[in-house]
């Protein structure tokens, strides 16, 4: 059996209603769990970019990418190993204002390069960006203070190798 690995799949698409359904259906039909997903605009006007994280054997990642590319409104799809990308996630923590001056928290924030983005009478919000593991560590540290809310984004990633989307679109246009 081929070993499972973590892959980041980038999918450049047209911006149209229902495309998320069509793209995620490719993962669904192969019974692949999506670890994280982010949708945003891309470096090209009117072109959207989906970033998926999946844990699958590499041959499966290859097949999925081909089946994604087969969809009419998908411009290109790529898969990348962890080594081929620079990636980040963002998280926000909501805590009670009573802990605002807690020294331990202050130290942790410095260590993790986390910021306080809002302070109100009742709560304050910490924001941080980093690897999933960094955020998990901060989560574990802050959890004992009673997290009022926690949210984390999906992975966003920039690849080291070039993804020649602009050229491709220019060729077609």
């Amino acid at each position, binding site marked *: 059996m081929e070993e499972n690995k973590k892959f980041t799949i980038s999918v450049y*698409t047209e911006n149209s209603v*229902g495309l998320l359904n069509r793209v995620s*259906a490719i993962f669904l039909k192969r019974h692949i769990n999506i670890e994280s997903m982010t949708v945003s605009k891309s470096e090209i006007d009117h072109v959207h970019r989906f970033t998926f994280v999946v844990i699958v054997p590499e041959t499966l990642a290859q*097949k999925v990418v*081909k089946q994604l590319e087969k969809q009419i409104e998908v411009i290109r799809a790529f898969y990348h190993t962890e080594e081929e990308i620079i990636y980040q996630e963002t998280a926000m923590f909501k805590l009670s204002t009573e802990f605002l001056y807690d020294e331990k928290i202050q130290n942790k924030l410095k260590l993790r390069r986390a910021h306080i983005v809002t302070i109100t009478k009742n709560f304050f919000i910490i924001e941080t960006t980093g690897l999933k593991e960094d955020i998990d560590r901060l989560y574990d540290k802050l959890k004992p203070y009673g997290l009022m809310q926690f949210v984390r984004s999906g992975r966003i990633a920039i690849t080291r190798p070039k993804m020649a989307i602009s050229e491709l679109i220019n060729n*077609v246009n």
Partner: protein
Amino acid sequence: METQIETKSKHIKTKEIKISGSEAVIKCLLEEGVELLYGYPGGAIMPIYDELYKYQDKLHHVLTRHEQGAAHAAQGYARVTGRVGVAMATSGPGATNLVTGIADAQIDSTPMVCITGQVGSHLLGSDAFQETDIIGISTPVTKWNYQITDASEIPEILAKAFYIARSGRPGPVLIDITKDAQFDTLDFHYKKCTAIRSYRPVPEIDMNQIEAAANLINIAKKPMIVFGQGIILGKAEKEFTALIEKTNIPSACTLLGLSALPTEHPLHVGMVGMHGNYAPNKLTNECDVLIAIGMRFDDRVTGNLNSYAKQAKVIHFDIDPSEIDKNVQTEVAVLGNVKQTLVEILPLLQENTHEKWLQEFKKLYDIEYESVIKNDLFPVKEGLTMGEVMKEINTVSKGDAVIVSDVGQHQMFASRYAKFNQTKSNITSGGLGTMGFALPAAIGAKMGAPQRDVIAVIGDGGYQMTIQELGTVLQTKAPVKIVVLNNEFLGMVRQWQQLFFDKRYASTEMTNPDFITIAKGYHIAAERVTKREELAVAIQKMLASDEAYFLEVCVEKEDNVFPMIPTGASVSEVRLS
């Protein structure tokens, strides 16, 4: 409706024609050369049906008895003509009833455009009467789908729909149109779609791959070709025949590749797959180069992948990059339109005779003939066999008929024994295995090829899944020939129960109605054959008739289809009994 608009800047009067969205749909269909469509009206599509009424001298609508029938009829029409089939239905149940046909067209790469009505856009998402999210439902089984909520989108979207359905690897497209978009007006301008920036229907040909493939084929001692429907969809029958006649490579077809090469061609070595022929299945595991052309290594073709052609270098010709290495690892992938890639490779190939290698196919054929084929075609037992029915059909049709088969044992007998002289003559539900496909598909096929005999070969189970389409035969007078091979069983499932479930015949025995009475109720001439001596005459009589005809042949109840590759077994473990 016509309005005159004065442009202020130049003071020139130009005529802009405002028409309704519904009329625009009809005009789009006419622009795309559609002459015939299949469907069923209902609330949310009534504005379009109203326009169909007005345009009935230009566009012929066939009313089926169920939307599934409309989808299969459109498929039958598409498969026999190579053109885009069109089916239409209302929202909600009308749309969901199309889904089986759409899924069938998707897995068998059939060009089809389905148009569904949808509730008014202000009601979307409110669980309105006959509202269903058909875009969500059909996404996994369509090549493309789109919901039109604004009449002005109609020309561009329908042009795109037809372009996507027919180009590259064909497939079904569903366009859902809200009722308000059907009523609203637009300025109608039609421009055919020729390109979409995110869609590359045909990959560029890589000459390096062509050369690599040619080199492998030229040094091969035991090459074997497996060809699929890609030859037919790519209209590459001539190019393919030229290739095999130059190289003398034994060529086997897949179920959907049938009729791409005349069955009597000396290099046609039969069909591969679960109930395919003995020689090509066995020798798949002995060839040194396996050349797959326009086929997708379905599991019913390959059996166990871990022991499929492991000794061979595989060359795969296909238009769809996602098929390469999907199931079988290839040595050389030749991407592109097969009509072009075969032309490119032909001059690079050396002539060959492969005499000894072809003899091996002949030897195995003789074994299959003695232990299976002889008993199927010339039985000595009392009960009629499905094989001899096909033999008698061949005698009268001489291989010129279109054979539309349903799904099950009779399908395998039809595929194994029907003779085909020309392409686009074998219409069956391959990938999806949709029982109930044949009767409506035969109606569509007959309308697509009115000059040809169209014979639907159906089992007693599948027949009853879409038997209501006899009403369509009655109303349209489509002269289809319907042969029901009645063994009073869901035969294929029963065969598996016999072989793998110790004969526990769970829910496979059928208590059937009197099919003759039913046919007569629809005013269709009908005859039942129970004895061998009646068979030939009955088939002659059926094919001599100018009208629709129903023939029931009561066959042996517990016959099995052989050869057979049991599930999970290797192609070389193909069983003869």
